[in-house]
């Protein structure tokens, strides 16, 4: 019933945790930090070069299917790109953090294949440690604050944010409605997001 992991983990369980990173591990940590702080494309390309073939290899063993293995590479590396800033350098190896992202995504993929459910339960099984839990009050405060920031945006940007995030229009729908090119909508939205982010971070 339970497939046991054949790799030996005994040696590491019986030796004191070695927090000193070796050269390769340090390099990976450095790349991830550059991605986190500056969205450094060169550093991300290095991470991709190192991890993508290994993730594909792992996916092929697990799913025996090229397309699924490629999906695992795509989604894992996308999450690394998007969530790099969540990695806490002081907590250990970046490579382990990337492993857990891949593990979580493949758990959800497997469940989807077996039950046809997209319940994305992995983030509940392996919750982000140290994250604060939302409270209704906090949530309420944040939404209120965010709404007030949206109100302070220049009129054209405000309109785009409201239509897309509050009235849930797609970017294409909004472009059609305003008879504007899609690119204009995208760039207004991007400008608005940068402004909102700065405001939220200033607090």
């Amino acid at each position, binding site marked *: 019933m*339970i497939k046991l992991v054949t790799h030996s983990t005994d040696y590491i369980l019986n030796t004191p945790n070695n927090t000193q990173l070796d050269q390769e591990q340090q390099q990976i940590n450095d790349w991830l930090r550059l991605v986190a702080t500056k969205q450094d494309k060169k550093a991300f390309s290095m991470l991709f070069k190192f991890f993508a073939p290994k993730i594909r290899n792992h996916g092929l063993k697990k799913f025996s299917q090229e397309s699924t293995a490629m999906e695992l590479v*795509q989604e894992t590396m996308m999450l690394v790109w998007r969530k*790099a800033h969540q990695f806490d350098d002081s907590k250990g190896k970046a490579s382990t953090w990337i492993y857990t992202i891949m593990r979580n995504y493949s*758990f959800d993929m497997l469940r989807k294949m077996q*039950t046809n459910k997209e319940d994305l339960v992995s983030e509940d099984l392996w*919750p982000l440690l140290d994250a604060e*839990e939302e409270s209704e009050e906090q949530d309420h405060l944040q939404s209120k604050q965010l709404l007030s920031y949206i109100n302070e945006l220049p009129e054209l940007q405000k309109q785009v944010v409201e239509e897309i995030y509050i009235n849930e229009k797609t970017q294409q729908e909004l472009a059609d409605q305003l008879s504007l090119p899609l690119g204009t909508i995208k760039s207004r939205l991007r400008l608005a997001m940068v402004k909102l982010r700065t405001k939220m971070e200033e607090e």
Partner: protein
Amino acid sequence: MIKFHPTKEMLKAFSAGELPLSLSIAMSAHIELCDDCAEQVKLIESSLSDDTWESNLLEEADFGDMLQSIMNEEVIASSTYVNKAKVKTKVADQEYTLPTAFRQFNDLKWSGFGAVSRARIINDENNVRASLLHIDKNGQIPQHQHKGYELTLLLEGTFTDELGCYEKGDFIWLEGDVDHSPYTKDGCLCYAVQDAPLHFIKGMSKVLNPLGNFIY
């Protein structure tokens, strides 16, 4: 003090994402309550990670424009992350906060059978049923055997059976040939995973076999 823990093999299988959801929920909830196992899992993840990334003999693969398309994605980094709130549930006039692993189950439907109330968690895995069970004070489940395995994770309260006395966080794994009759003095809330119905074996309680199917 938690006395009953998952085996090292189960911790490894969980960390590799290889356990089914029903058991993964139990592992995650136990780890949330048990610092020792949480510490072990950290080490195991690190070691599994090293094993996974070690492979040097790799096929050439063409990733096309995957790298470029990922980097074209705009990143909106927020400096604080918030977890969704844990689920609270009310049963037998008491409110309980469930561990993080249960965050998806915010619409639990409790149904009662004497001192026992049940809320189904999972029934879509082959032959496996997972439920939350609430047993009222002085409640007893008649002596029974399991045909397969039964995992009980004690979430609140205490209970005892022929094999021992259990407290919050205890992870109790029974294989088919053990029979037991759990009793709770002060009431308890458990998460139970079984891979075959309970089978009552003693005298009159045989008529309770429908109860076995209910709990299962």
